[in-house]
């Protein structure tokens, strides 16, 4: 267990989060946006798993449980997100999020 370095692992999940956030901020394509969100969520999942493994106590189980819940959550989110993509495509003929600004008014 001690073969893993916490600093390296945290750097990995931090890097994933940064990639995800960058994607969220820059992508205009809805599908790429969704993928970026998935990456950011996975960074959080990784963190849960690491810390569960490190703590080694009874709370380890809860960390893993949350990781599993998060994976399920991510899956449902993608399902909903793709449904929105389809609806948007049908409605506007494009999946560019910059054009979907009906919330403005």
């Amino acid at each position: 267990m001690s073969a893993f370095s916490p600093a390296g692992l945290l750097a990995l999940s931090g890097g994933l989060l940064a990639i995800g956030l960058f994607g969220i901020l820059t992508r205009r394509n809805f599908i790429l946006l969704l993928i970026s969100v998935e990456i950011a969520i996975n960074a959080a999942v990784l963190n849960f798993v690491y810390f569960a493994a490190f703590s080694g106590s009874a709370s380890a189980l809860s960390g893993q449980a949350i990781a599993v819940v998060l994976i399920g959550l991510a899956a449902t989110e993608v399902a909903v997100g793709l449904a929105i993509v389809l609806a948007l495509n049908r409605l506007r003929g494009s999946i560019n999020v910059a054009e979907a600004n009906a919330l403005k008014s």
Partner: protein
Amino acid sequence: MTGLSFALDYAWLVPLSTLVAFVIVGLAGNRLKRLEWGGWVAVAGAFVAMVVGLLVAAAEMMGPGTYTDQSFTWLSVPGSPGTFPNGVNLVMGVLVDPLSALMLIVVTVVGFLVMLYSIGYMHHDRGLPRYYAELSLFLTAMNGLVLSDNLLEFFLFWELVGVCSYFLIGFYYEKPSAASAAKEAFLVTRVGDVLFLLGIFLYFATFATSGPGAGWAASGFKFANGTQPFLAGISGGNSTTLTIAGLLMLAGAAGKSAQFPLHVWLPDAMEGPTTVSALIHAATMVAAGVYLLAVTSIFLGFTATDQLAIVAIGGFTCFFAATMAVVNTDIKRVIAYSTISQLGYMVLAVGAGVTMVGMYHLFTHAFFKALLFLAAGSVIHAVGTQDLRKMGGLWKKLPITGLAFLFGALSLSGFPFTSGFLSKDDILGSVLAATSAHPLYWPFFLLALLTVFLTAYYIFRAFFLAFGGPAPRDPALPEAHEGPWVMRLPLIVLSALALGAGWLAFYPPFASLLAGGGVPPSFSATDLALSAVSFGLVLGGIGLAYALFGNGRMVEVPAGSAADRVRSVLLNRYYFKAGYDWIGLRAVYGFSRAADFVERYVIDGTIRGIERAFARGSDQLRKVQTGIVSDYAAYVIGGLVGFLLLLLVVAPWIVAHLGGS
């Protein structure tokens, strides 16, 4: 005779019978229109009221000085420390005492006769159910006022008669002048009413806590409770409050009885039907002010200052109003001014401390003044105008009316051996007697004496203008003829009463109702001398009127002469009405408009300004809302970063540099 005393327990039937008539006519009147039922229902109500009222009065005569009182709790609140510790107990009830019995006779008899007369007089008018309903309601309220057993109830019915008067003055509401006169009457009397209300507060609050009136407060401030008058038992410390309270009662009475300076509404009230003028604005309601003063003087008492003020108002008003009657050409308005003037006599008497003499005049005046109005109504009914300048020569065509008017005029001017002579000379004699103790009464006595001359002049001027001469001055007037029996009968009955009612004072049981100084009139040497003087004035007045108008033509005053200017001032009623109109329309309404401006543009303007600032600010702020998801995500992330910076960098820096010391 105890056989009648049961009637005292049924006094509540008097207002109730007319109330029933009011409800029936008011609710079903329109359905009974074709049958003219409404009027007869109202007459029946008034008739029952009269019968019961006379029985009650008779029973009261037989057992002088008795008080019969039935009441129920109207509003009762427990006390709290520091204010009304004994609580406030307000009651409504029926009180029969000599004074109310006397008024009951006046109100129910005149009420019935006028109601009967209306059947003929109002025959051609629209809206008759409304008329009879309102008149019945008026009789209810007036009888309720007469039978009130405390000041609050008195005020309650006082306002109700006022509102009935309002509706009846405005009976011909399509006429703007009638609607305006009704409003004016209500508002001017309202001024008096508000002061009257304040007076009630003064009495209630002064007596509620301690002193001789403590028991009075617990009983619901009834008239019949405790020693009378209360004022006798009040220490000097309270006399300022009580003086003010007395003056406020005077103000209330002045509003209702059209005394100076609240007299302006009564002449305008002649816009109502003549029957209404006879009943409300001559015989009953306007006399309620005098009745109030009488009740106050008997049960509560006036201080010397109050008395002087009352004498001054009464004495001045009786002269002041008579001067305006001298030039008026509207037959009803002449009589209206004479009503104000005669009420002034009564007020004068009450103020001079001879309350019952004032009530005596009230009693006789009710009949001869109702008679004058009904006779005038008969004239108006016959010729269709109220303008004296157009009338003339009616004596032959309207013999009954003419005779009735003559009897009324004789009684009004105080011709010897009429009712008016007895009561008016009684007032003059009593006031003259009072001047020995109160020299300040002298000028007002002299004004009252002078008024005798004016009274005789103006009423006979009206008489000669209407009835004298060979033919109407305006040939366009329709052929006059007497009204139906329902109109003639009241005239005959009232003629008898106008001449003879005053003599009732020499009938001992009746005189017991007027128990008090000065009634029945005595005929001492001074009195006889005074009567001779006043008879001389009456003859002078009649003679002058005959000399000027006896041949039935108008006397024209040359335009621009001094006499014409005086006439103009008198016709404009000394510009009082114009002044009050200015206060109402210019001062109060102008202020109100200005305040409305402030309301709209300053108060609400400030609010709207604040609101606009917010709206503009948020308009700027909403530009942030692009609607693009990525932008929102950027804000979220930016916020997160900022928060982390705050937590991890700024906060530790602050703690390190500032918190440590």
